[in-house]
């Protein structure tokens, strides 16, 4: 019972919701960058296993035993045995079948989640890979060609085959909401204005630790050095060179640079679906608005997740030809 990696893709790692409750020991949270797409998959597939997170160029996988799976997240050119497949649908596969995720069409990251889940040891109560500390996931690293990963036997893996969801996470624009950061007072009015006046470009040097941004320089008025303190997910750190870095899931737990702003939870989910070279437009909002925005979203998202099980099962053969989802795809919705 296993899968084999035919092509690893650009950067494919085992992820889950992240390593929670161990930050005081110095563990990075790690975990799925697009948390909501991960959660959609989890609700569809109905088990506690981890997902494979892929980045811009997805992996090709051969199933060495019967299984089922779903893909969620960004829109990729995904095919099962050469036939195009869709996101948020559970497919059944047999021994020998080949899933090719291909290149991103829209978005940057996606998730494969299995009905007979990957057999991965938990480290600090999480499956998540943190490549910098070589911990968690499959051997603490990104997947390579010819890796064979065992799967866990779950007799009911076929139960939800054909189940589908149509949750749209609305990544239609590049406007990213931010709130005041812990060292906002270290920055001039001019720097705070510059952060939202023009777009910033996501640099090639971006990874799961952080997105480096290129645009107007916004250095702090005096030194960027502060007494090291814990850093929150989404912090926009600005060193003396004035180039902001948005800290993501694989960040260190503590840092000693000034932080002008924090990207909101919804903003982060949008941001991580952008590729290097794409532009972001930041927008200041109040923390109260951010809290309300998140609460509204979370409530609606919970509803949509709980609706998944109530939907009728799709006939997969029909789904390939027509369907509302396919029409949505052509319109560019995820």
């Amino acid at each position: 019972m296993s899968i084999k990696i035919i092509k690893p893709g650009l950067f494919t790692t085992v992820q889950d919701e992240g390593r929670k409750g161990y930050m005081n020991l110095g563990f990075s949270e790690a975990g799925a960058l697009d948390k909501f797409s991960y959660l959609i998959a989890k609700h569809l597939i109905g088990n506690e296993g981890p997902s494979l997170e892929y980045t811009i160029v997805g992996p090709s996988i051969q199933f060495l035993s019967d299984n089922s799976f779903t893909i969620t997240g960004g829109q990729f050119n995904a095919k099962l045995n050469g036939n195009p497949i869709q996101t948020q649908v559970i497919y059944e596969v047999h021994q020998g079948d080949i899933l090719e995720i291909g290149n991103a069409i829209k978005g940057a990251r996606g998730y494969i989640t299995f009905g007979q889940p990957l057999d991965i040891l938990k480290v600090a109560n999480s499956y998540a890979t943190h490549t910098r500390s070589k911990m968690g996931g499959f051997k603490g690293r990104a997947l390579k060609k010819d890796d064979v990963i065992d799967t866990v036997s779950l007799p009911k893996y076929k139960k939800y085959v054909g189940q589908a969801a149509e949750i749209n996470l609305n990544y239609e624009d590049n406007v990213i909401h931010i709130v005041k950061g812990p060292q906002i007072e270290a920055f001039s009015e001019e720097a705070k204005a510059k952060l939202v006046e023009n777009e910033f470009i996501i640099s090639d040097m971006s990874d799961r630790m952080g997105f480096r941004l290129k645009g107007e320089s916004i250095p702090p008025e005096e030194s960027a050095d502060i007494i090291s303190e814990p850093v929150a997910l989404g912090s926009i750190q600005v060193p003396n060179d004035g180039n902001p870095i948005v800290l993501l899931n694989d960040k260190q737990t503590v840092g000693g640079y000034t932080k002008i702003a924090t990207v909101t939870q919804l903003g982060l989910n949008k941001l991580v679906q952008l590729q290097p070279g794409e532009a972001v437009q930041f927008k200041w909002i109040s923390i109260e608005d951010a809290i309300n925005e998140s609460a509204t979203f979370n409530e609606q998202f919970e509803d949509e997740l709980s609706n998944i099980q109530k939907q009728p099962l799709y006939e997969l053969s029909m789904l390939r030809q027509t369907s509302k989802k396919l029409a949505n795809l052509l319109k560019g919705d995820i």
Partner: protein
Amino acid sequence: METRLINEQSLMIYFDNEITKDTYNKVNKLVQYIKEQNHKEIIDIVPSYRAILISFDNTSIDGTKLIENLELNQFNDSESNQLQQRKVVTIPVVYGEEFGPDLEEVASSNQLTTEEVIQIHTQQPYLIYMLGFMPGFPYLGGLDERIHTPRRSEPRVKIEAGSVGIANNQTGLYPLDSPGGWQIIGRTPLKVFDLDREPMTIYEAGDYIQFKAITQDEFEQIQADINAGNFELDKWVTYDNEY
């Protein structure tokens, strides 16, 4: 004390902008105060020199509500001069030779003998202000000025787990194999960090580390004991009183 929401799921509590034992005692006491309240929505409480990060599940509580529930106005930080018990973890270290290849460098750049460096490094316990940088890495305060030494100009590709090092005014301990630029002066046979053990680290923020010089024979004996499954943390931990 100042409280700020950093995003929808994190808040920071700040004390005075300084690295002192006094400020850190307040941090440590407030962490205990919050832990005792046992809020189930709190995911992580991360102490540091002067600030505490609290991350919480914002699908079960709103940040402003959590701040209210913390009842920070009831917290009394003025007792930091009272008698407190402290936990001191003894870390046995072989200094120099292949265990501490930079001991000579630290000695010569400070016009000291290697014996003097060892004597100074082991003379008092160091407060662990926080863990970070990598799992289990302690940020230690209070390194004697006489042995401050800049980082190596060429970082090492691999530093062995258990290595004890100096970088400028800091001293620390590598819990895992890692690349790094610190001046390595010795190594401990203790597994200070072990993923398969509960707790994973033998110390936490707020505890003290006391380095103790041992011989290579003692190192091997301790290592053999550990490999035979005879690691007893209690043997290395003492409690004392401090004003």
